[in-house]
């Protein structure tokens, strides 16, 4: 049993322990880390930044708690940015366990909007974000494809009432808002296959500008849509969120997490290299 075989046969729990330690320690010792913003992110930021007051945007919070880690920072930074710009937002959550989280997030963001803050040199007065006037939360319906198509016809078709049971027509925001025609853009923050539905059934049928916030697992798969113009921007995983936070000058969990990310990556890379060295060596031995 040579050194490499021993390396291979090491109990996985030691690996777990090492990773955990590295992450916890780097989390405990904060230090700044440089983040370069890529086009696919900045295009989303700029789009929202250039919208006029009272423009309506549509934000779909399509993820379950299990991918909240990556998606929540996106939701928080994008929605706060939009509210600071005094945009109006229509929310849905087409993911089974999403609505409760969306509800939570909206209330949290409402709290942070109350305080006066300065972003990128512009001071935004704190204000109350009112349900029905500043935003409407439509809630959840099963079968994203059909719901999205339905909303394209009329929001009232799948959603006669909003999440809290209020008829849509009672909301000042929804006055004269029929379907996606009255919406400036749709931002789908998705950890599920619902994103395909948004591209195919939403953008495909009703041609609205669509931006995506995606988990890292999915991010790389949607670049073709970016290139074909079906999607105008992509936020990929925690890095995407961090980039947005950087542009919005509103550092949150994503930027805070990136330094841990950095070290965790280095650990993983180290493991890959170690493992492969061991592998190649043992193969050498077999050859002899």
């Amino acid at each position, binding site marked *: 049993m040579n050194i490499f075989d021993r390396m291979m046969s090491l109990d996985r729990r030691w690996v777990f322990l090492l*990773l955990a330690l590295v992450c916890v320690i780097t989390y405990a010792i904060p230090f700044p880390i440089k983040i370069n913003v890529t086009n696919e992110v900045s295009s989303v930021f700029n789009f929202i930044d250039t919208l006029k007051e009272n423009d309506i945007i549509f934000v779909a919070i399509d993820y379950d708690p*299990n991918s909240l880690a990556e998606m*929540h920072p996106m939701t928080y930074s994008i929605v706060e940015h939009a509210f600071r710009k005094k945009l109006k937002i229509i929310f849905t959550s087409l993911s089974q366990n999403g*609505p409760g989280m969306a509800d939570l997030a909206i209330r949290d963001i409402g709290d942070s909007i109350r305080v006066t803050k300065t972003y990128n040199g512009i001071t935004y007065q704190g204000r109350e974000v009112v349900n029905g006037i500043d935003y409407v939360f439509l809630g959840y319906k099963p079968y994203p494809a059909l719901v999205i198509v339905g909303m394209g016809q009329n929001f009232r078709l799948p959603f*006669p009432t909003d999440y809290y*049971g209020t008829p849509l027509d009672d909301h000042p925001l929804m006055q004269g808002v029929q379907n996606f025609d009255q919406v400036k853009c749709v931002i789908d923050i998705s950890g599920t296959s619902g994103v395909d539905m948004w591209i*195919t059934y939403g953008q*495909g049928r009703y041609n609205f500008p669509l931006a995506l916030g995606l988990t890292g697992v999915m991010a790389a798969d949607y670049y073709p849509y970016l290139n074909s113009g079906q999607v105008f921007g992509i936020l990929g995983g925690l890095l995407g969120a961090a980039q947005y936070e950087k542009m919005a000058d509103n550092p949150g969990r994503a930027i805070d997490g990136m330094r*841990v990310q950095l070290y965790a990556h280095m650990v993983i890379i180290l493991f890959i290299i170690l493992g492969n060295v061991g592998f190649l060596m043992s193969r050498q031995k077999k050859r002899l």
Partner: protein
Amino acid sequence: MEVMSMGTFLWTSLGAFLTLATFSFLYKDNPMYKLAEHLVVGVSAGYFVIILWHNGLQPNLFSRLDDGNFYFFWLNSSRPWYIIPAILGAMMWTRFSKKWSWVSRWPIAMYLGIATGLSIPLEMRNRVNMQLYSTMREVNWENFFGNGFLDPTAGYSGLLIFLGVLAALFYFFFSKEHTGLFKGVARFGIWILMIGFGTSFGYTVMARISLFIQRIQVLGDYTKISWSGASGAFLTVWFITFGIFVALGLYELAKYIGNRRTAA
């Protein structure tokens, strides 16, 4: 640093406890993990029931069957036909009876017909037409070698994308043995595919790690807050919450070392 009420603190402690209980699976499958796992299955199912009721049946069916002027069930609601989907839906439930399960096929068939029919032109448009259209791009011949190192907007990048798409498509072409020229093309295709998968892989690692990071952040906040607002009560809960895990850890460690001894 905010100081929270005892109630909130207890709730957050529960959250922290369950988090650790779930992490304990990393050591090995154990009762606490099983508890958390089964609990979440139940809770999320119940949550789903409620969401389906309050956001589904109630607004889309019941409230429509009843619009005020009502005295004989749905018959004089202004939209009595909404009883039809309700009945179709109810048919689904025959699934559980051996004898009648075939009844459930009608609503399924209706649903399936609508869903698939809807998907065909849209999928065709989005995944084939649009992608094909955007493959036919003019290569930036003026600036073929781009400016700077590996410029995605450069001409050669454009050309590479086009060739790559064709090669990747060809790799999934099964009616032709990969020999001669085709062999080369398919080889190029699989290389392109592998690079594609590689990028996904890199992103995936990031994704998985960030899941863990968020948990650390949550636990970190929890400890910070609870310590900052440390009172006797807080600390007791704190120690109960973590004491369990420390004790368990020590016990397992002792056992582990013991086994080592006997093994040696």
